């Protein structure tokens, strides 16, 4: 493989894990394509009201 690799990653799905994968990768020096089928990222978590245990807003 050597040095002939592409320094970018495609992340398919913009839910909580997709978003965070993308952030981690971008912050450690890779170009990221975040591909989401809906009009905005956020996934199911954005639909939740509050989360255990702190009752933080899921937003």
């Amino acid at each position, binding site marked *: 493989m050597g040095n002939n690799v592409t*320094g970018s990653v*495609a992340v398919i799905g913009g839910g909580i894990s997709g978003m965070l994968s993308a952030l981690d990768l971008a912050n450690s020096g890779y170009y990221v394509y975040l591909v989401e089928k809906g009009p905005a990222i956020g996934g199911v978590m954005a639909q939740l009201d509050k989360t255990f245990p702190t009752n933080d807003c899921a937003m």
Partner: protein
Amino acid sequence: MLTLSELIDVKGEKGNFEIDILKKPRYVDLDLCIGCGACAEKCPGKADDEYNEDLVKRKSVYVEYAQAVPLKYRIDPETCLKLTKDKCGNCEEACPTSAINFDDKEETVTIKTGSIILSPGYKPFDPSQFDNYQYSNYPNVVTAMEFERILSATGPTMGHITTMPKVPVNPKKKKDKELAAYRKDPKKIAWFQCVGSRDINKCDNAHCSSVCCMYAVKEAIISKEHAGDELDCSIFFMDMRTPGKDFEKYYNNAQEKHGINFIRSRVHSVTEVPGTHDLEVVYADEAGEIQKEIYDMVVLSVGLEIPEETRNLAEKLNIEMSPGGFCNTSTFDPVSSSVDGIYVAGAFNRPQDIPQSVLDASAAASAAGDDLSPARNTLTKKLEEVPRINVVGERPRIGVFICDCGSNIKGVVDCAHVTEYAKTLPYVEFADEPMFACSQDTQDKMVEYIKEKNLNRIVVAACTPKTHEPLFQETLENAGLNKYLFEMTNIRNHDSWVHKNNPDMATKKAKDLVRMAVSKAALSEPLKEEKIPMDERVMVVGGGMAGISAARSLSAQGYEVHIIEKQDRLGGEALKLHKTPKGEDIQKKLKSIAEDVNANDNIKVHLNTTIESTDGFVGNFKSRITENGDSSEIEYGAAVLATGATAHEPDEYGFGMDDRVVTSLDLDRMLIENSAELDKMNSATFIQCVGSRDTNRPYCSKICCTHSVHNAIELKTRKPDMDVFILYRDIRTYGENELLYKQARDLGVIFIRYDLENKPDVRTENGSLVIKARDHVLGQPLEIESDLLVLATAIVPRKDEKLANFFKVPLNEEGFFVEKHAKLGPAEFATDGVFICGSGHYPKPLDEAITQGKAAASRALTLLGKKDNLFTSGTVALVDQEKCSSCGVCVAICPYSAPSFLEEGRYSGKAEINPVLCKGCGLCVASCRSGALHLKGFNTDQIFSQIFALDEVV
């Protein structure tokens, strides 16, 4: 970021993929749309709001929800009148930036990437196929997702719980109107667990969805908070599965503090009480008696399911899947799919909750990065820097921008008047009223104005600094000004929105806010962000599987790692385990991993080593270690704590008195050794929760159910005629481990439930080992004679206070490390530069420990990746040593250990702040009696000037 896009095809291989992506039309130009909402206001179209689970309607041009990213509108082609019937076009007229484009077309783009991460997520199970729960027919049967929206303050009822939630708030249809008449505040709500999970009779989902027990408990508690304590909440369940960190406490609290009823039963049927729409629930109680109970509402705790389209995609990519449609991964590479270079994260990997998905995300990121490290930083861009203008000593020349925000602000506040008023304030050189302060052309103009008018302080009165301050600060930097010479005040959320009906007062308030901001800005000074030097080495404390995984990921990306292990070999607790639940041979695998680590030049393994002391902070740690009795010092930039946990030493059930009573780990050892004794045995019994979920250790140890079930299968497979019993409280084989539970029952393993009040009794009678329990089905006492009794012992934390102290990280009351955020920061500490993985965080099986190890590495990688641009914040506390009285309040009160005493020099004994550790929270400033502490950017003078400015009469 590509939204409204779907992956169609992948070509190429690991390192060099070519991916075809189908981009669907948005009909709104992303660059031009500013998210003002003028289009939606004029849109006559209506569609079901999917975000609110179709409980309400939204417009045809819409954003999913107020906090959506990107906050750009989209036209729904299915319901838009223009796109369907070529009528209307209101939005095009209303849009102030001409962002609407009805000619937008579908297109396919090809991108080149080195790795792929699949995180397509799940869909909640659709219960309409079940006839016994009557979801499609009864208006008071809802899914948990629908209920989640009902509870939400941004949902259709703004958090108010009512029955008939599926009926529109303002019903138009006759049938809906009739139903709406029955609407009331519910007094009794029931949750049904395992709807679409652990069920192969009515659907094909054999797995446990892992999340429903917790969310049902959460919904029940929040319902009570919303509707008051009188609300009766009952949860019908098979096994309560609350094995995560602090989950058990939450469950206990729900019973004891919140008075939620937990009923162990699978509900038989639901019928409407004629004439009321109330629901009669028929179920069998634990004694087997049929019970009937009336509820106002039923919530179905629907499971997680992999949608058909995801399965098709996986099939297309040749990715192996489990029967449930989840991605097949191995225990030792828990985020790698069967295709090289394609990784998985989230619910597609396995049914899991948010923190697990977050860990998956980071782990997948580091795994994807491991392949590509030679190409790191080749495609990312560096920003150009504009030389800074020195403004120190200059008279303030303030520029004020009053944003109209379309009609959002201007519709209420007289912006022109406020702008004129701003011009009269002291030090204000220039004031302008842009329609949208955040739009790109305004930004460009701002830069011009700053240069042209020689402005040295900027005030923007617009929306919230939370989202927009960084944007404006960037603009200042583009104009050569220090970004702290900026002040923002919110005349939208705090003013035009809340005083909609009182424009005069709103205008007056806007003037007050602008005056305050200007008076503060006049006193602002440029602040320096100190560069933090970064040692690129990492120390991993603990050489168990979690620690090794973290070290391997870090070394794969080219970083040097020290592993500190106090034992004489790598492997930790995994050295004592036989096989994984997936059947992989742990010892064989461990051996090859250890060899791999030892051969790795980037990893230095320190065995028989303990840490004596640690100093420093992110980027600059220093520890004294004792290795084989020799003392030495190592320096590093980040630390990963992977110290693990140990097995509880039981003091009950005859352990230590009778050799036939052993722990789970003892059984594993016998299996590893392939002990001949096992073949002599004719019966074996397991007791679960030994030392877990009791008053001493109120948490669930998470791994023991799966471990015992798996070992029971192992015994049954070795010797099929062996009698195997498992005495349990709740079987917690979450996720696809549920399949093992089923396999065990099919193989004839007998499961007997006991509760905390009636623990099994173990005694030796006439030389044989007798276990007395109570059969939960028949309610009869029961005696089991057994050749072997295996105790599934609790996992206990090391409670290493010394280590916690070294790194200034907290332990919880049980002795586990407390992570930064239970949901969003599960692999790191609040202390910068310190990361956490493995069972020291909470008991977890191997695959989860490895995932967390990789995730911790990924989090550390993002820190190390910032090597040359890691800066402190400008807004940190500063000590005026002349005034400092050395009393130490700041040292004691700071949650981040930023203040300390100077040890030498003129101000020896006085306090100083380490700007790297300071978070700018202001606690020390507020508690300093001597007035020696100041928060840069929020000086007392600035605050006073704001307060006095407020008091000035206009």
